[in-house]
């Protein structure tokens, strides 16, 4: 009797293997170095190792482009959708690593641990983007979330950070529990954990015919709504965004959203593909509520991170629009918007990080007053980011909205397109408030002692932070991307269309 090991497609698994190896190396590397060098040396080593790990993974993913493969007995599927979303997550992680250089939180948590957790979360995202089985789906979402709970609380000496970590842990666990419970129902109703199997299992009675399945789908959707911060399950977003160390916030805002939307798409299109008519109206209603709540919530915010948190809720509503239409154009638009969101959002966060370290105002809007005169190299990226998020032309935000609206009108959801237009209009009021603070207000004295929520002993002020290359370069790069893909969008459109074609 011979035992046949299942055929493993190591080539297609290589990105996951590379990431796992990188986690180990990053954890161990600085330990070896610490005996010889200082603590800062260790932090530099782990930063460099993390960036190398991310670059290798990205390289392997690009190598697998356009070559879909089913992995691990069909539990994972590495197609262009998974690759594109993973690349977005990796890019966001690389930005976050740069923004974390000299970040007090990263140093307090021990360089190696901080970066290993970040990589662990990226691993979860890469896995999640490939998941097409309820089991891998759940494992991936936990792999993604648990490191983030810890990362949110790494700024040990700031109470807000600990609170944020705890809040995220509780709300996140609630979301995960709901998700898991829903999965159990789905398995009970359809007799399969495989997305394709669920599709055939559901196929007999339709969604409305079987209460078990309906409850299951509802709970899975709620669980995913928690992760993507879709209203009314968004309440944690502003608080956690505000409390977490800003580089972590920037990573969460982009990468978590991208990965969760990837599985959102795969689950609804593959497992529930035959019943689009049943879930479309429900998701459309959620999208509309999210757009309204996010935009209205952002209006009165003085904290830039809370503002970006609410704006992220609103943007999630727009992106959900791409999911609603259940068409290839919809997925294209969704991936395009997520990729654009990477540029738009990271430019803003890089500037917030720089000003946070520079002024002592924390992330209060006062921190950017008079920035246009004082630090044009930071003011321009933030301006571009705000205009892009508002959907102004000649930025990637405009093309993204154009793409979404085109998909929505084509899919007979013109009312939701109008809703997006109205939402963008409201959003101008708060995005332009930031722009006005930068260009139309005199600067506040930069050396003002810390007030408003920032505790000086936890956040030492670095008056030169606004000139540090590792903060200015990411800001400029992201802003340049937001403009470039607004003027030459075709490469990004091709990228998104590849991703969309993977499911159809």
């Amino acid at each position: 009797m011979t035992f046949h090991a299942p055929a493993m497609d190591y080539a297609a698994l290589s990105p996951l293997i590379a990431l796992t190896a990188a986690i180990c190396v990053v954890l161990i590397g600085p330990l070896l170095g610490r005996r010889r060098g200082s603590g800062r040396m260790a932090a530099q080593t782990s930063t460099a190792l993390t960036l190398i790990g991310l670059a290798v993974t990205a390289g392997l993913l690009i190598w697998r482009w356009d070559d879909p493969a089913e992995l691990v007995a069909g539990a994972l599927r590495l197609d262009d959708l998974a690759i594109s979303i993973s690349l977005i997550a990796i890019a966001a992680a690389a930005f976050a690593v740069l923004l974390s250089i000299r970040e007090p939180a990263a140093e307090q948590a021990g360089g190696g641990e901080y970066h290993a957790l970040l990589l662990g979360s990226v691993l979860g995202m890469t896995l999640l983007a490939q998941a097409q089985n309820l089991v891998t789906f759940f494992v991936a979402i936990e792999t993604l979330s648990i490191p983030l709970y810890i990362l949110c609380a790494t700024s040990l000496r700031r109470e807000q950070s600990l609170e944020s970590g705890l809040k995220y842990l509780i709300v996140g666990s609630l979301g995960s529990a709901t998700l898991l419970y829903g999965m159990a129902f789905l398995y009970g109703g359809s007799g399969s954990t495989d997305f394709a199997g669920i599709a055939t299992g559901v196929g007999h009675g339709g969604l409305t015919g079987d209460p078990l399945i309906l409850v299951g789908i509802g709970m899975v959707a709620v669980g995913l709504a928690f992760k993507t911060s879709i209203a009314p399950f968004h309440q944690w977003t502003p608080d956690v965004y505000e409390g977490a160390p800003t580089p972590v916030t920037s990573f969460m805002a982009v990468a978590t959203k991208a990965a969760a939307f990837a599985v959102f798409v795969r689950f609804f299109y593959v497992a529930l593909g035959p019943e689009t008519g049943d879930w479309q109206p429900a998701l459309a209603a959620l999208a509309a509520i999210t757009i309204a709540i996010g935009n209205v919530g952002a209006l009165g915010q003085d904290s830039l991170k809370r503002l970006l948190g609410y704006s992220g809720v609103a943007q999630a509503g727009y992106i959900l629009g791409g999911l609603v239409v259940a068409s290839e154009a919809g997925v294209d638009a969704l991936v395009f918007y997520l990729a654009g969101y990477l540029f738009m959002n990271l430019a803003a966060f890089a500037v917030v990080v720089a000003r946070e370290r520079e002024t002592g105002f924390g992330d209060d809007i006062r921190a950017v007053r008079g920035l246009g005169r004082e630090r044009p190299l930071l003011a321009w990226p933030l301006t571009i980011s705000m205009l892009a998020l508002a959907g102004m032309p000649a930025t990637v935000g405009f093309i993204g909205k154009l793409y979404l609206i085109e998909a929505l009108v084509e899919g007979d959801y013109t009312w939701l397109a109008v809703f997006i237009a109205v939402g963008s209009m409201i959003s101008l009021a708060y995005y332009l408030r930031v722009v006005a603070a930068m260009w139309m207000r005199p600067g506040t004295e930069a050396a003002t002692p810390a007030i408003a929520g920032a505790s000086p002993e936890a956040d030492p002020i670095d008056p030169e932070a606004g000139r540090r290359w590792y903060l200015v370069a990411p800001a400029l790069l992201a802003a340049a991307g937001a403009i470039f893909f607004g003027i030459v969008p075709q490469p990004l459109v091709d990228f998104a269309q590849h991703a969309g074609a993977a499911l159809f």
Partner: protein
Amino acid sequence: MINSLLWTPLAFGLVGLFLPRRHTGWWATLGAAVTLGLAIALLAGFDSGAPGLQDTVDVSWIPGLGVDYSLGVDGLNVFLILLTALLWLGGTAFAAFREQQRPHLFFLMMLLGETATLGAFVAQDLLLFVLFFDLMLIPFYFLFGAWGTDREDGPTAAAATLKMLVYTLVGSLLMLVGAIATAIISSQDGGHHLTFSIAELAKHPIAEGSQRWIFWFFAAAFLVKMPAFLLHGWMPDAYRAAPLPVLAVFSGVLAKVGAYGFLRVVLPLFPAATVQFQEVVLVIALASILYGSAMAFTQTDVRLVGGYSSVAQLGFITAGIFALRADGGDGAVLQMVNHGLVVAPLFIIVALLAERSGTEDLRKMGGMAMRAPVLAALFLIVTLATLAMPGSANFIGEFYILNGLFQAKIVYAFVAISGVAMAAFYALRLYQRTMHNRKAGGVASREIGLRDGLVLAPLVLCIVALALYPQLILHRTDPSVQRSVAATTGSPPPQAQLASAGLKPTYDVANRPVGGEGR
């Protein structure tokens, strides 16, 4: 040619960032001058007899989304392009003569505004048009907000300009949805691939039911931009906040983009809805004329006199377009150019007056003409043109508009005529209160300087030249206007069955002699 015209201002603006502070203004003026030269060359090469678009550029821009980078010139926009280039040169030069804070950014924004505005005029792809239409706002947002004046008795410049932006974007974001919907519905009905080309879309107008709601999405954008009565809420605050050289180009050109949009997009693409809502828009236009005129002769702020008079003038232009007759449209295009030519010098004169009297309050001005005969003469010409004195091109423009309106809807024409009389009142009141009357305290009557004269005199010369030879414009615009209007009168075969409903054709456009001859 048209490409270089479009991108020259922006290129000069970007290069200007790297020049020393004191040269940026001159460099920007040079950029505007080169653009004007290109615009004149464009007009010189314009063949008024050729049907359709000339000087076209058409390359695929985002093939994945069906968007083309497509530009072109015809009778509708050729003079508006020239107007834009001319006024921008005036405004930029006027600003360059004065000390500006942060000159690099100021002139970059100024020239970006020119590129965006020219883009809106030359775009022949619906989406490109929407893109430039929205893009126009960004530079003006910065210019009004960062270089504007905060009023003690009103909102700050930043608040006023935010209000302007939100108002105008209400319309234009809906217009984006409308534009996409038009293209998609058209491609689904016609079974052809997705295109945003205005000419292609005009060949097969979409079903009447869809036209109705899309019409209002576009109309909202254009009417806010003008601004029309009830949608003008942003205007007073923004006008009071704006720096005057910027306001001169803003008021002179940007309002026209709205009116131009009706002729370029709404009439050809939504003919049935246009016919259906003709009277609604006419009522709005008349309300703008009456309200704008009435407000203009009660305001004491010089800027607001100019602002409200623009509301009234744009009301005339809208009425001319929505007469849906060729002469109404001809008059509207002529009047767009005329109004730009009078309102920009008006605001430049306001700036000069404010420098001499230290105030923009009519009650505190007076007697300015005393030692400034040249300034007074230039102002008088502008004033007389504003009130459409017979002999001025404005008179011809209003005559054509009213003529078109008489044949279409006689009742509206009677109401509109009262606007002509009121224009005389507010224009002369402005002139008298500032230039004549008793000399007010604190007013220094000074002659116009040579450099400011160089800005103002050419603009006034253009007014005079156009008064002598309005055919220059009428002759070239008429064929294009006829094409725009023809869609709504149902004369060409493709739209015959669509537009016949609810139409009372009384005037055979096809047999009408080209141009305004015989009048």
